[in-house]
């Protein structure tokens, strides 16, 4: 199979065999869900319900007037017991609506499935926004914004991201196997919304079954092509994917629209399809619960707001004591110190790692081995940025383009000195942005 790819990157072990053949399951609902009102990039939502009020599945509980924002819906029926700042997966606190689960929990569409070809572009974007769809690959950028490209930047190609290049995660793989029609439907809707002509579905070659299934379904469509991609991290990163599929380079600091491309994750494509044809809000998502410490690893469809502890219980608890529980993939996800945080729209997985896989080794000076330079898919010099950031020399870090780093972690993965490069870069970026705001 001819495979395309980008330059740089790394080949971490895939660790996908635990779950890649397990169909997506549903689990029992928890007694309470915790729904943060800011699960996306952009403006936070303000609550649209009060404590004591009852809510239904899919009811809007938070919204914002800002364009770059996405409404938040209740994932269950029940009543609101609290609205307060609660721990969020990224180590902060976010205003969240706590709902006691009670009554009938099925969601029924109040419309017959629509044909997207009959819906005009503006209504498509509205439907996507109202459904609160955000990028499900992890970044959680509001999807309707991406479907509204700048007028002067025509988009010709939609890329559906089925790379799933993070180790351990298999939810996108399962979505492609189990719901290929919906992926294609979402792709078609996105194509219509941005006025593109071509659709490409990029899939790493470690998922030959998904490539086959998607090829079958996509083959029936006009101008839709499955592109097998080399298994390499971070193949699924937006700019790297566009380079691999279209051989176009998004300039530094620019968006994919600059080169006429739009990238949507496969899960997001399904969410777009459901939002536009059924009016279904994004109140549940598919994620992978896995790692050596999980008794029964699973791919699950989970209601947003389900506490991690409940999810883990439903997977049989821990088979061995974990040292790290990660929300998201192991390359970019967040380690949790408490299991009370809820699953949110951007949670693609829960990975539990044992002591033996967690490096607590002390880090050292940079020994200039150059491995990070070879790994960086943005062609930066992570060694220098790291040294400057470590020394709090943020001006230098900025001159060495720390702001072009998208924190894929490839550099830190290969570093023999185990330098916490991503942490250095985050500190530097935060400080640089803070200075800009002050200036």
């Amino acid at each position, binding site marked *: 199979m001819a495979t395309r790819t980008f330059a740089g990157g790394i080949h971490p072990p895939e660790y996908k065999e635990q779950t890649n053949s397990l169909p997506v399951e549903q689990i029992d609902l928890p007694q309470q869900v915790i729904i943060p009102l800011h699960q996306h990039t952009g403006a936070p939502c303000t609550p649209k319900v009060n404590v004591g009020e009852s809510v239904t599945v899919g009811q809007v509980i938070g919204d914002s007037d800002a364009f770059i924002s996405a409404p938040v819906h209740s994932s269950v029926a029940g009543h609101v017991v609290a609205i307060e700042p609660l721990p969020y997966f990224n180590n902060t606190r976010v205003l969240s609506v706590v709902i006691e689960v009670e009554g009938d929990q099925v969601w029924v569409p109040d419309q017959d499935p629509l044909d997207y070809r009959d819906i005009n572009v503006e209504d498509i974007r509205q439907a996507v926004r109202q459904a609160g769809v955000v990028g499900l690959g992890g970044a959680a950028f509001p999807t309707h914004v991406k479907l509204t490209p700048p007028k002067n930047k025509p988009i010709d190609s939609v890329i559906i991201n089925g790379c799933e290049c993070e180790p351990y995660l298999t939810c996108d793989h399962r979505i492609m196997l189990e719901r290929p029609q919906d992926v294609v439907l979402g792709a078609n809707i996105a194509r219509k919304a941005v006025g593109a002509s071509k659709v490409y579905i990029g899939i790493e070659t470690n998922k030959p079954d998904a490539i086959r299934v998607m090829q079958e379904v996509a083959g029936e469509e006009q101008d839709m092509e499955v592109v097998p991609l080399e298994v390499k991290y971070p193949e699924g990163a937006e700019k790297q994917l566009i*380079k691999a599929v279209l051989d176009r380079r998004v300039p530094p600091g620019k968006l994919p629209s600059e080169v006429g491309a739009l990238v949507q994750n496969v899960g997001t494509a399904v969410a777009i399809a459901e939002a536009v044809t059924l009016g279904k809000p994004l109140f549940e998502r598919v994620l992978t619960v896995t790692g050596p410490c999980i008794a029964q690893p699973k791919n699950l469809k989970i209601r947003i707001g389900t506490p991690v502890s409940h999810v883990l219980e439903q997977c049989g608890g821990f088979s061995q004591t974990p040292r790290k529980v990660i929300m998201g993939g192991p*390359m970019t996800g967040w380690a949790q*110190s408490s299991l009370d945080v809820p699953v949110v729209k951007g949670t693609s997985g829960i990975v539990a790692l044992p002591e033996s896989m967690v490096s607590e080794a002390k880090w050292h000076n940079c020994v200039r081995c150059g491995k990070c330079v070879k790994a960086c898919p943005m062609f930066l010099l992570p060694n220098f940025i790291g040294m400057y950031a470590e020394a709090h020399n943020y001006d230098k870090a900025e001159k060495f383009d720390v702001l072009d780093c998208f924190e894929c972690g490839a550099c830190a993965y290969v570093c023999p000195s185990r330098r916490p490069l991503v942490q250095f870069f985050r500190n530097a970026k935060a400080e640089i942005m803070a200075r800009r705001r002050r200036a």
Partner: protein
Amino acid sequence: MEKPDLLYSPPPHLNSGDTVTRAMRDVLLALVPIIIVSIIFYRLNAIFILIVCNVTAACTAWGMRKLMGKPHSLEDLSAFVTGTLLALALPPTFPWWLAVIGTFLAVGVAKEMCGGLGWNLFNPAVFGRVALIILAPAFVWLNADMAPLHLRFGIIDVTSGATPLALLKLGQGQLLPSYSALFIAHPGGSMAESSVLAVLIGGLYLLFKGHINWRTPVFAIGTVFALTMLLGSNPFYHVLAGGLVFGSFFMATDWVTTPITDAGKIIFGIGMGILVALIRLYQAAPEGVAFSILLMNPLVPLIDALTRPRKFGQIVEARIPVIRIKTVSK
């Protein structure tokens, strides 16, 4: 559910398993073939020098860090790499007190006093070797005093006279060993010069392990070959005799003291090759590998700046690197 004790740390949560210790261990492993050849040729003399340098390196690293109030870092094995490299760069009958001084300068001055592994500008082993050559006149009195303490283990069946490169220089080509002898095994000069083959086996192992980059040795050796040929000397002897192959694979590839980018490594290799050829052909010294590396080391920051990669998607701006340097340092 049980509440496990969970660690919070930044991503990524996986790593390649590479460590500095492992890389250094691989370098030591890569030196085993040439150590074996040295021992075959020079018996206890080789072992003795290796022990002297390694013990001195370890004591110096430990002692200097103790003095500076830092935790010792012997487990990263870098002191032993320096000790072994320096020992191999010495002739087998080298006076042990000078080996001690050289190792002390290498590990104590070139490495630890510069901030420890990672901060050193000069390759420690090369620094030690060159310091011994330059300071040789200063040690004459010492040698006289210490001479009775000189240790020799058995007779070494090598004419301790002229090395192949010296013969070449003196125009005594008829005395030169054959190419194949030089390539496979030929005593004379420093221990590491005794077998190109053994050095290459180690170098290929490091390449295979991904610890070194082929560009530096290939361009260094290639440059010496081309330039000596162009200038009318015998390029095969310049490559096969002397410390060129050893220096190119084991010293010019040192992580800390050579450029970080591929392009930079090529520049370093070419620059070093030019210096080696010029020193060998136009200077009194028959050998010039250590000097050349030492002269290239301080240029590394400049080479790094000149070869800074263009970041992803950057097209128009700064096609000529020099212009970029201005924008960088402004």
